[in-house]
C-alpha cells in the first residue's frame, strides 16, 4: 500500500473510475489543463483527453445543469465545485433536478452524478472559503451526502460515489487535504506521507456508502463526528483523558443509525461535533435521532459542539472552529451531567 495525501487519493479514485468506465467524465472550473486549484484532477486531462476532463466557464449552475443532461444521456459526471461556498448558484439544479429526476420520471431518467467540493475551515479562508454546508443537502430527499476523513476513505468513498446509481454530494475537508491535522491547529502537522492513516490501497478499492466506523473504542461517551472533526474528537478524547468512543460517520445520508444506536446504548452519553453553524446543522438531526432511539439509555443530555451561528470569520478562525478544547469541555460536562 502506498501513502498518499488526500488530494492524491481523490485523484487516484477518479483515475481508477475513468480507466474502468469511459462514461465517467470530470469537469469544473480550472479542472482541465491546470488540474484544479487544489490539484485534485491534475494529469487527468492529459491521460483521458479534453473530452473527458475539461475546464468550464465559471457557472456552478451550468456545471451541474450540463451534468444532469449528461447523466440523462448515460454518462457519469464527477464534477468539482471550486469551494463548497460556491455551490449555491447550483442549488436549484441540485434540489429541484439532481435530487428528483429518478423520482419524478419514475426511473426513466436517473442522475448518477457526483458533486465534489472542498469544505470546512482551518486555512484562514474567511467566510467564502470555509463553509460546511452539509445540512443544506441532508435535508433534500434524493441526495446522498458523504464526508471522508482520511485518504483511504476519500478514495474508497469516492469510487463508491461515482459507481453509485444516485447523486452524491461529496464534501472534502480541505484542512485534511495535505495533512491529517491531528486536531490541534497550533501543533506541527504530520504529513499524510508519514501518517499511518495515509495508507491507501491501489486500484479499485471501495468503501461502501452508509457505513460508519469506530475510530476509537470507548465506553464512557459516544462522539459522533465526520471529516476534520474526527481528528478533533480523537485529540479531545486523548487530551481530556476520557474513554470516549469516536464514531466517524463517513456518510450522512444514508446514515448508519445502527452503529450510532449500538454505541450510545452502550455508553449512555453522546456528544455530536461538526464545524457548520449550530442551528439546523446536521448535529440537530443526530441529536434528534439519538434521543429518539436511545432515550432510555441516555444518562445526560446530548451535547452539540459546533461552529457558532455566525458567518465564518477570518481573523477569529480558531475562536470559531470547535477545537479539541471545546470538544474536551463538552466531553467532561457530559460525563459530569
Amino acid at each position: 500500500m502506498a501513502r498518499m495525501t488526500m488530494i492524491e487519493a481523490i485523484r487516484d479514485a477518479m483515475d481508477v473510475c475513468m480507466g474502468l468506465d469511459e462514461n465517467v467524465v470530470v469537469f469544473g472550473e480550472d479542472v482541465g489543463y491546470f488540474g484544479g486549484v487544489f490539484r485534485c484532477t491534475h494529469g487527468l486531462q492529459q491521460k483521458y483527453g479534453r473530452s473527458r476532463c475539461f475546464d468550464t466557464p465559471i457557472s456552478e449552475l451550468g456545471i451541474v445543469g450540463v451534468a444532469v443532461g449528461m447523466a440523462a444521456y448515460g454518462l457519469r459526471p464527477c464534477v468539482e465545485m471550486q469551494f463548497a461556498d460556491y455551490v449555491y448558484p447550483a442549488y436549484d439544479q441540485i434540489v429541484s433536478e439532481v435530487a428528483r429526476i429518478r423520482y419524478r420520471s419514475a426511473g426513466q431518467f436517473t442522475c448518477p452524478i457526483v458533486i465534489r467540493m472542498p469544505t470546512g475551515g482551518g486555512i484562514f479562508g474567511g467566510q467564502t472559503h470555509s463553509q460546511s454546508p452539509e445540512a443544506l443537502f441532508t435535508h433534500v430527499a434524493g441526495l446522498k451526502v458523504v464526508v471522508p476523513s482520511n485518504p483511504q476513505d476519500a478514495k474508497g468513498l469516492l469510487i463508491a460515489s461515482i459507481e453509485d446509481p444516485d447523486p452524491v454530494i461529496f464534501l472534502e475537508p480541505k484542512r485534511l487535504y495535505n495533512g491529517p491535522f491531528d486536531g490541534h491547529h497550533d501543533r506541527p502537522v504530520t504529513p499524510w506521507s508519514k501518517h499511518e492513516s495515509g495508507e491507501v490501497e491501489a486500484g479499485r478499492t471501495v468503501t461502501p456508502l452508509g457505513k460508519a466506523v469506530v475510530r476509537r473504542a470507548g465506553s464512557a461517551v459516544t462522539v459522533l463526528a465526520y471529516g476534520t472533526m474526527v481528528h478533533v474528537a480523537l485529540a479531545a478524547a486523548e487530551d481530556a483523558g476520557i474513554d470516549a468512543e469516536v464514531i466517524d460517520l463517513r456518510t450522512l445520508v444514508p446514515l448508519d443509525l445502527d452503529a450510532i444506536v449500538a454505541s450510545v446504548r452502550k455508553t449512555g452519553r453522546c456528544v455530536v461535533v461538526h464545524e457548520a453553524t449550530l442551528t439546523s446543522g446536521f448535529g440537530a438531526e443526530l441529536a434528534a435521532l439519538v434521543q429518539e432511539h436511545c432515550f432510555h439509555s441516555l444518562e445526560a443530555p446530548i451535547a452539540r459542539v459546533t461552529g457558532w451561528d455566525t458567518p465564518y470569520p477570518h481573523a477569529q478562525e480558531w475562536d470559531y472552529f470547535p477545537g479539541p478544547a471545546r470538544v474536551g469541555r463538552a466531553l467532561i460536562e457530559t460525563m459530569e451531567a
Partner: protein
Amino acid sequence: MTDTPRLSLHVPEPEVRPGDTPDFSNVAIPRAGSVPRPEVDADPKSMRDLAYSIIRVLNRQGEAVGPWAGTLTNEELLEGLRDMMTLRTFDARMQTAQRQGKTSFYMQHMGEEAVSCAFRKALLPGDMNFPTYRQAGLLIAGGYPLVDMMNQIYSNEADPLKGRQLPIMYSSREHGFFSISGNLGTQFVQAVGWGMASAIKGDTKIAVGWIGDGSTAESDFHAALVFASTYRAPVVLNIVNNQWAISTFQGIARGGSGTFAARGLGFGLPTLRVDGNDYLAVHAVAKWAVERARRNLGPTLVEYVTYRVGAHSTSDDPSAYRPKTESEAWPLGDPVIRLKNHLIVQGVWSEERHKQTEAEILDVVITAQKEAEKHGTLHAGGKPSARDMFEGVYAEMPAHLRRQRQQAGV
C-alpha cells in the same frame, strides 16, 4: 453636472390592458417568403439580421412561398394538421376534465400547436427534447399514446409516473421527451449537457432545449447559452415567445432588446426568428437548425413568435390583465386554420374533410379518455399506491425510508 435631472424608473407596460382595443400594428410582420435562407454552415456573423426578422412561408393566400418552403410533402402536412387538431381536441377535453374535478390542474396549447407539432417532425429517433409544460405536441406528433397522457393527468392507477408528478408534467425517454420540471428554465442547460454527452461519445444524436419567453430571464438560460457556445454543443435551443408569462407581457423579460432571438447574438450563435403559427415555417427552420447540430456545426437559437390564446393554466384568468379580444387581433392567425387553408389551396383538403376529421379525432380522444377513466381519476377510482410514494427516491430504498414506510403502514 449640477443641472442633472432627477432620475426615474422605467417600467415597461403593454400598450393595451383590459378595456382597451387590441392593437398589434407596431408588430412588424415581414412578407412570407421574404427572409433569405442561409446555408447551414454559413458564418453566424452573416445572418445577424435574422434575429430581428420573422421567417414565414405561408402567405395570406395560403400558398407556400420563398426559400424556406418545400420541406414537407402534402401527406406529411396532412399528418401535421391531424397532430395539431388532436392536440387541440385533447386540450379541450382535459380542460373540461379539470373543471369536473378529475384532475387538479391543466395547461393548454391553444394557438401554439404548430411549434411543437412541426418541430417534432424534424427529429430522428434517439434525439432528446428537454421540454416545458407547453410542448405536449412533441408527444402527440411523436406517437405517445393519448391514454398514457391522460393516465398521468388523472394520477390514476395506470399513471406511468405513479402519481408522483403533477398532471401534464410528462416524461418519456422512449419518445425523446425528458421529464418536465415545474421549475422554469432548468431544462434548457440540461439539454446542452445531453448534447455535449452525445458529442463526447461520438454519437449522432442531438438535443433540443425548450423555454418560454418569460423564462429566458432565468439563470439557466444564460448558462445554456454560455455552455452551448463554448463547447459548440449539438443542440437546438428553442424560445417559444407566446407574448405572455402568466400576467406579464413579454416586454418585461425582453427589456430593451428588439427580440428574444437577439440574445443569441451576444454568444455568436446563429439565431433565427420564425412565425410560430406557420407549420411550414416552423418545420423548415427546425430542419435547418437540426441539420446544423447533426453536422457538428454547433447550436442554434430559435425564437418562435406565437400567441398564447388561452389562459396560462386552469388557475389563471387572463381577462384580468389583457383585452378579451386580443387573441383575435393577433396578426399571425391560427396555426390550424392556416395549415388547413394551405392544404385546401393545394387541393388535398376540404372543409368537409376537415369537419369529418374533427369528428374522428374527437372520437379517438373520447375513446382514450374512457379507457383512462377506467383506471380512475384524481379523486375517484383506481389510484397509485401510497407505497409508490416511497419508491424511487433512490435506486434502493435506504433504511430510513423503509422505517418511514413502515410507520406509514403501507
